[in-house]
């Protein structure tokens, strides 16, 4: 187990963490400010990936299709919030969960009708299709691009939320929604804005994941589970929590997958370790989440201070 491998795996964990952060940033605000459980967030990720793949096949330009796909998911998010979800803000959580679960089915079926059941593929942009040699291992430059793009978006979000008036409303909304409504802030507008931006971020995550993964109906659900872990671990409604939570979950998951099987092989009978290794590695992040919640029930960086 060399240092270079550990470094490479940390980088892999960072890259997964960045994708998770893009997904979590929007959803944590929606859950924090609007008190709304939106399970269809994973579908927006899928839509972003599909739109980008379709445009990429048509135009051949990765940058253009990425920008249009992000804009496309922003519009989808806006319409979704205005036409449907805004009607469900007051109601019980269970109805919200049911409605957004229904949306998952609708979206999955819709992409199946348009693009078919078989996976769609998107090629890596030409200028990022090489590799970089790092710690003696070759690493795809595209994955670096994900890290850089994600960090830039993270920085932009940080500035927008901490340095602008709208950002102040959003922060205030996450802390106490009734109070800022009473102070005369148009909370409805804030809601729509947050939802649409969250959708665009999920779409962006989908675009970035497109060239790595196969794009297929239902691709949003496995990642949604990780995103929910990130949000709960980081603290609902907290962007900072989503950022650190995503990085920690990404790194714990990757490091666990990479090293636990080998460690277990060293400690246990090889036959048992072969079966148990992957199983334990895949529950590691849930163990981590449970530990955090046991010690800090509001997450690592709670948005609400009571």
């Amino acid at each position, binding site marked *: 187990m*060399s240092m*270079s*491998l550990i470094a*490479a*795996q940390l980088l*892999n*964990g960072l*890259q*997964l963490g960045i994708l998770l952060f893009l997904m979590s940033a929007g959803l944590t605000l929606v859950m924090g400010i609007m008190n709304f459980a939106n399970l269809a967030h994973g579908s927006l990720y899928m839509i972003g990936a599909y739109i980008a793949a379709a445009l990429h096949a048509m135009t051949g330009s990765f940058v253009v299709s990425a920008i249009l796909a992000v804009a496309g998911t922003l519009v989808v998010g806006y319409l979704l919030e205005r036409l449907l979800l805004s009607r469900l803000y007051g109601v019980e959580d269970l109805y919200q969960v049911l409605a957004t679960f229904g949306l998952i089915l609708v979206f999955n079926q819709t992409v199946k009708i348009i693009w078919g*059941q*078989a*996976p769609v*593929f998107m090629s*890596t942009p030409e200028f990022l*299709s*090489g*590799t970089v040699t790092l710690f003696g*291992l*070759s*690493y*795809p430059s*595209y*994955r670096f691009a994900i890290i850089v793009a994600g960090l830039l978006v993270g920085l932009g979000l940080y500035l927008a939320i901490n340095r602008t008036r709208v950002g102040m409303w959003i922060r205030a909304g996450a802390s106490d929604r009734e109070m800022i409504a009473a102070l005369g802030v148009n909370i409805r507008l804030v809601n729509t804005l947050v939802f649409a931006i969250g959708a665009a971020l999920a779409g962006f995550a989908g675009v970035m994941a497109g*060239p*790595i*993964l*196969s794009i*297929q109906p239902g*691709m949003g659900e*496995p990642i949604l589970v990780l995103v929910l872990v990130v949000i709960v671990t980081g603290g609902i409604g907290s962007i900072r929590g989503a950022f650190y939570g995503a990085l920690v979950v990404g790194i714990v998951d*990757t*490091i666990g*997958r*990479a090293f636990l*099987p080998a460690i277990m092989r060293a400690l246990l009978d090889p036959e048992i370790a*072969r079966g148990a*290794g*992957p*199983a334990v*590695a*895949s529950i590691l992040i849930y163990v981590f989440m449970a530990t955090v919640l046991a010690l800090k029930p509001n997450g690592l960086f709670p948005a609400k201070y009571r």
Partner: protein
Amino acid sequence: MRKIISTVVVGLSLGATTGPAATQEPIKIGYIGDFTGVAGALAEDQYEGFNLFLEQHDGKLGGFPVRVIREDSQWKPEVATQLVEKLIEKDQVPIITGITGSNIMMAVHRPITERKVFLISSGAGPSPVAGKGCSPYAFYTARQANQISEVVGRYANGKYNNVMILAANYQAGKDVAAGFKRTFEGTIVEENYTALTQPDFSAEIAQIQVTAPDAVFVFFPPALGINFTRQYHQAGLNATIPLLTTGFLDDQSLPSLKDAAVGVHVGEFWMSSVDTPASKALLDAFKKKFNRMPANYVAAGYDSAVLLDAAIRRVNGDVANQEAFRAALKEGSEGTTRGKLRFNNNNFPIQSMYVFAAEKDGGDYRMKTVETFPDQQDSYHQECPLP
């Protein structure tokens, strides 16, 4: 009572003509496939292969008209067993064919063969029904599932000393890995199984680079396998550590993988480069009808129709005579996409297995045959009590 009368009437009327051929009703054939669900594309291919032969022969097999009753088992064993009841009790079919998933095969094998209905599988071939659970009434036109990785192990012998295995952590993943290990004589330096829900393999690819084996053998379900191959290529490893695999890379997935697949070696029982007259004819007809390349399940489906055609001709349409029809099937058939189809004692084919590789030819990508292993028998046939 009515049934007895009708039997008598039918019997008399048949006796009055010159034999079963002249005024016979179509031979009923039940067809079960997993048309919806994860294996939908495979099932569709398998059926198109079968159907293509029928279309080419005016809906006749062995010169006799047939009626195919097509049912969708939806990748659900409990649905499949109900369909078997329906086909045997209500439709009274003497033959059931198709069968896509191994789980479906395990559910329907006994209910079909116990009633002495013929089961012609053009898809699934799991190990239990090849060994102790074999039946004189079940025949297989694809392959025993472990063979596709056993051939890769044979191919790797002498070429690579240290091989790393990476597979998805589920039954098929373990079976395929076991098949490779059975025939590979070198050292397995590392063995890693990943969760079926994991779509990104960055951690495993870094692990491969550090382990630096002579080659890697991987097995994943189709979508994940394509993910892995693309990511492996993105990491630039194709050039340094050869990738051996089976199951997901074929003429059909090659167009979406392109450069990422070039140089990848894959074990299979059929691809379009297999050089037989039937193979070429199938390729032309299929491309003309669907405007895409056929995958191996198309060939297995097509060959099941070729086999039925030959066997029905041998018994002159009298499939109700079970002993004669069984013997007729057992004889196999000429003219399948793999040449002459011969059956082992467990009714699985004794056939050539191949290792193919994806290559770039100008702007085109194609699968070429790298090595042929003739007369391969599966590893379970000794356990089958049939002679």
